[in-house]
C-alpha cells in the first residue's frame, strides 16, 4: 500500500521541526555567541594534563561551572571560596568542555586559586592525606609524569 501521504507529511513536518530545534539550539548560539579570547592559553604539558583529566573521568564527580546564585557564596572549605561565576570566555577553545552534571567532589573552576602545586600533587596521590573522609579514589597508580601533567593542568584553573 505504500507510505500514506499523512505519514509522509508527518515525517516531513517532524524533520522540519527538528531542523527548527537544531537551528534554535545549535546554529543560533553558534552564530551569535562570541566567547571572546581564552582567559588562559594552555601549554602542551597542561593540555596533556587536561586529556588525562578527560581520560580518567575526573569530570564525572567534579564540575567546572559556577552558577550565578552560588557565585562567591558557595563553599568548598571556606564560605564563598567556590569563586566567581564562570563566563563564556572561560570555556573558549575547550574541546570538550567539562561543565559536568554532579558534584561528588567540589567544583574545580577555581581550584588553582585555592590550592598549591604541592597540595594538588599530594591530594592526587593520597586524597585522605589532605582531605580526611574524602570519597575520591587515589590516583597514585598513574605514572609520575602523568601526575605532574595533571597537577600542571589543575593549577591553571583559576
Amino acid at each position, binding site marked *: *500500500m505504500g*507510505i*500514506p501521504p*499523512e*505519514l509522509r507529511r*508527518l*515525517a516531513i513536518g*517532524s*524533520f522540519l*521541526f*527538528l531542523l527548527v*530545534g*537544531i537551528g*534554535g*539550539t545549535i546554529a*543560533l*548560539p553558534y552564530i551569535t555567541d562570541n*566567547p571572546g579570547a581564552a582567559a588562559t592559553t594552555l601549554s602542551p604539558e597542561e593540555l596533556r594534563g587536561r586529556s588525562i583529566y*578527560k*581520560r*580518567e*573521568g*575526573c*569530570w*564525572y*564527580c567534579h564540575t567546572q561551572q559556577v*552558577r*550565578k546564585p*552560588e557565585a562567591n557564596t558557595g*563553599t*568548598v*572549605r*571556606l*564560605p564563598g571560596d567556590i569563586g566567581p561565576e*564562570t*563566563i*563564556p570566555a*572561560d*570555556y*573558549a577553545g*575547550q*574541546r*570538550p*568542555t*567539562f*561543565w*559536568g*552534571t*554532579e*558534584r*561528588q*567532589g567540589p567544583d574545580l573552576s577555581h581550584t588553582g586559586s585555592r590550592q598549591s602545586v604541592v597540595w594538588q600533587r599530594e591530594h592526587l596521590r593520597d*586524597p585522605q592525606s589532605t582531605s580526611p*573522609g*574524602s*570519597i*575520591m*579514589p*587515589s590516583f597514585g597508580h*598513574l605514572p609520575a609524569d602523568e601526575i605532574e601533567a595533571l597537577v600542571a593542568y589543575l593549577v591553571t584553573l583559576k
Partner: protein
Amino acid sequence: MGWAPPPGRNHSMTTIQRPSPSLLTTRPPAPSLPRADDSPPARWFFYSAIGWLMLNVVLGILLSIFLYTPAIQDAIPDTLRTQLNFGRLRPVHVSAGIFGWVSMAWAGAMLYITPRLLRTHLYSDRLAWLTLAVWNAAILGTVITLPLGYSQGREYAEIPWLFDLMLTACLAMLAVNIWGTIARRTERRIYVSVWLFAISSSVSVVVYAVGNKIWDPSGSYTGLNDAIIQYFYIHNLFNAWFTTAAFGIVYYLLPRLTGNPLFSHRLAMWGFTSVWTGQHHALWSPAPEWLELTSVAFSILAIIPNAALAYVFMMTMRGRWGTLRENLPLRWLSAGIVFYLFTCVQGIAQSFRTFSSYIHFTNWTIGHSHLAFVADYSFFAFALATYLLPRMFGRPLSARRVAEWHFWATFLSITAFMYVLWFIGIRQADGWADQVPFLQIVRDLKPLFFVRLLAGTALALSQFLFLYVVIRTVTGPRDQSEQPAPAIATVG
C-alpha cells in the same frame, strides 16, 4: 470517545479490507497470531539486550562499592588498577545500560511489533540481522575501549568514534527496515505505535550524529557550543529515541494486555510534540539566557503529550485494575507508566530555575536518571520481555513464581534506591546553601551512601532472577498442543 467496533464485527482479513472511518480513530488490529509467533532477529535483539543488562548491573554493584569505600580500588592488582576504577567504569555502566540494554530492547520491539501491526513481513530480515551484529559489535567495542581510556569525555557521548559511526548506521538501518515495512503493508490503517517508531528511529539518526559529531574523530565541538550541543543531544536522545519509542511500546501493549480498545487513538497521537533544546539541564549556566528560557517553556509544554498518555492509560485501564494481580506484564507496564508520569513531574520541576539552582549537581540528579532508565524504560522492557518471549515460543512464561519475585524485588529496591538518592540530594543542597564545608557534608552522608549501596546491590541482584526466568522460558519444553498461546501468562 473511544471508537468502539460495531457489534458482531470480527477481525478476519475480509472485514479489514473495508474502508475505515478514519486513519486516526481506529483501534489496533486485533492480534490474530498463530500458535508460536516468532521473529528470530527481534528475539536475538532481546537476548542481546538482556546480556548487556547483566553487564550493566554487575558494574552497578562495583561502582556503588567504589563510591562507598574508595580505598578498595587500591586493593586491585597493579595490572588492572588503571582500567578498573570509578572514572573508567562509570561510562561502561551507563553505555551498556542505555545503548545496550534499553536501546536494543527498543529495536527488538520495533522489529517485532511493526510488521504485526501492518499485517506484513518485515521489510528485510537480513538487514535486521546485520543491524543486530553491528549493534552488538559496537557495544562490545565500547565496553572494551572505555576502560582502556578512549573516552571522548562527554556524558552519554563517551563512545569512541568508530563505534559512534556503527551505532549511527544501526539506527539508520532500523529506520530503513521500519519505513520499508510500512511501504509493503497490507493493513490500511496505521496504528499510533507505527507512527512513533517510524519517526523515532529516523529522527534519532540525526540526533545521534549531531550530538556525537560523527564527522570528527574527537567527537567534540569547541567552547560554549560544545556544552550547548551536548545538552541538545542528551535531551533529545531521551525525547526522540527513548521516550518516543517508549510511547509506541506503551500504546501497543496497553490494549493487548487489558483487552480493552485504546481509549482514544487521536489523543495518543498527541505524543508527537516537543523535540527541542535540552538547555534546561544546565540552568544559570554561561549559555545565553534566551536559550535557557526557551527550553524551560518547552519543558512545561511537555505536559501535553504526558497528560495525554496519563489520560489514555487511566481510561484504557477502566475495569481492568483487578487483573494486575495475575497479569504480570500489565503490572510491569502500569508501574512503569506511573513511574514515568512521576519522572515528568520531577523533570518539569527540575527545569524551573529556582528549583534547579538548589538541586542541580546533587545526587538528586542521579536518582532522577535512575527513575527514567530503571523505573520507566526498564519496566517497559520487562513488560515486553514477559509478554513477547512467551508468544514467540507459544508457551506461558516459565518460573512464574521467580518472575513474581523479580517484580517485587526490583520494584522495592529501585524505590528505596531512588528515595535514598533524593534524600542525599536534598541534604547536599541544604548543606551547600548553608555554606557547610564540602568535605563535612561528604562525611555526614556516608551512612546514607551505605544504604544506597545496599539498595543498589539488591536491585542489581534482582536482575539475576529475571535472567533465570528468561533462560527457563527460552529453554523450556515446546508446547505440543494446538491451543493458541494464552495472551497472558497464568500461574502454574
